[in-house]
């Protein structure tokens, strides 16, 4: 179980995350929604310990991880894998090496200098790529792949870390709907088959409803909503996003079938065409 207790992050006078308290049971798939700047990314980065909380405590199975240092800190990052909106692969290295980079933790300096990954590392990386249906790209340079493929490489890299948690920071925000679905399906499958806890920041509400067992809404650094997919009604979403009647999630929906989800109230058909920003 991952526990956030009064977790706070301040940058100068700005409070990015404000006394966040909630817990995530092991094996849950959790979605975090909220406007840009609501503190979602900061919260995930503190969980992986890319940054440290200013106050409060994050703990995993009763062990505090918010004050780890040195080797323990690196080991925790390996246990708590993270994927990013911009994939953050090394574009000039081939896909297989990129995935094997997930095994760097605990590997000696000399071995890493000469890229001496073990037979087992290579095997694990290929198996992970195969699970995500992109084993055929293993020898290509990562930078030449499409966004959707790169994000799946990033998930493969997370998998070879043999993590307990996978954090996904807007994993589908720069992908087209089809690739978004592939990536979310992959995360869901990993969550179900391996029992890995998945916490994902999301921009699209229908994605959150469709894939997550539980949804947390954040606004101005604080948790303002917590509930199941059914609890996330249009009114609840309007409250999280601080929006009025003009808020219409169908306009930003990226789901393939065009319907936000069966739970969402049906929107009356409109005659006026919507302007869709490119």
């Amino acid at each position, binding site marked *: 179980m991952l526990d956030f207790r009064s977790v706070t992050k301040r940058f100068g006078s700005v409070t990015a995350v404000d006394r966040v308290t909630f817990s995530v049971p092991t094996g849950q798939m959790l979605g975090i929604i909220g406007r840009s700047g609501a503190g979602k990314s900061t919260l995930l980065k503190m969980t992986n310990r*890319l940054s440290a909380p200013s106050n409060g405590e994050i703990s995993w199975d009763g062990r505090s991880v918010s004050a780890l240092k040195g080797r323990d800190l690196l080991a*925790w990052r390996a246990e708590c894998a993270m994927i*990013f909106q*911009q994939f953050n692969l090394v574009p000039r290295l081939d896909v297989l090496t990129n995935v094997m*980079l997930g095994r760097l933790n605990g*590997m000696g300096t000399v071995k*890493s*200098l000469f890229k001496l990954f073990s037979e087992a590392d290579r095997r694990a990386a290929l198996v992970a790529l195969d699970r995500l249906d992109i084993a055929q790209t293993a020898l290509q340079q990562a930078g030449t792949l499409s966004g959707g493929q790169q994000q799946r490489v990033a998930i493969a*890299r997370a998998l070879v870390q043999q993590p307990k948690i996978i954090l996904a920071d807007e994993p589908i925000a720069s992908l087209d709907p089809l690739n978004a679905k592939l990536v979310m399906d992959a995360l869901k499958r990993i969550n179900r088959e391996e029992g890995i806890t998945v916490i994902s920041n999301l921009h699209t509400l229908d994605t959150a409803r469709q894939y997550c067992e539980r949804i947390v809404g954040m606004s101005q650094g604080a948790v303002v909503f917590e509930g199941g997919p059914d609890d996330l009604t249009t009114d609840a979403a309007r409250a999280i996003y601080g929006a009025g009647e003009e808020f219409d999630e169908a306009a930003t929906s990226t789901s393939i079938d065009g319907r936000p989800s069966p739970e969402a109230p049906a929107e009356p058909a409109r005659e006026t065409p919507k302007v869709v920003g490119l």
Partner: protein
Amino acid sequence: MSTTIDHLEKAFSDAERKRRLYTALFLGATVFVMAGGFTIAEDMNSGGFIDGLSQFLDYPSDIVVESFEEGWTWWPMLLEFAPALIETINMAAVGTILGGVFALVLAFCSTRGLGVWPPLVPICRRMMDGARAFPELILALFLIFILGASPVPAIIAVAFHTAGALGKLFSEVNENIDRGPLEGLTATGATWFQRMRFGVLPQVLPNYTSYLLLRFEINIRASAILGFVGAGGIGAELRKAIGWSQGAETAALFMLLFAAIVAIDQASSYLRRRVTGDAAFQTA
């Protein structure tokens, strides 16, 4: 209303007149300094600038004429001087590699935002400034005085200067990297060294290679000059040839140097393409 406009127009033309006056004064001063400096220099020189101008092309033409008079026996000279060229290239290569290694270390220690101990950044920068401040020639003269005339002082001098010059270029390359891969690697639990190895090095290697080869080319020229002051190699031969007015030999030596620079330039672009990989030409 019109009085305001008249007033503004007057103010503007006053300012304009003042600006033109300053420009004229500045131009006058420049001409005066140039003319004054030239007459002083002309008085102090043993020869005259104007007289010398007509002889400007005499020396190069002498060299060419003497080379032609040499006829077919000019060509074997290229072979004869080849060992001296190889010695010079050797000095430059050892100096470049040694300096390059130091430059690499200094560059990583002097780049902000890579997670090095912050006070180390200005320290390493000042060290590189120091290494660049000494011209190779002065350093080599000093070292030859201590260590005696041999290629070793030249190599040390070249390496020292290279560490400073390349270190600065390398660290500028480091500053312009995409930080995404670094963040990704940090998130996997990689150590600082591993992050540099996989997050930074693959990104900067093509630029490093091209800067290193450019520096190698510069260092060949520097090593040739150091030969003049006793470090051996093609510089020593050039000094002899020029000193004894052996035009044909001088031409052969210049030819060799030119060929060496061209060869390195070609190798450089080939190597850079190899390191960059085909991907750089495929992706938009």
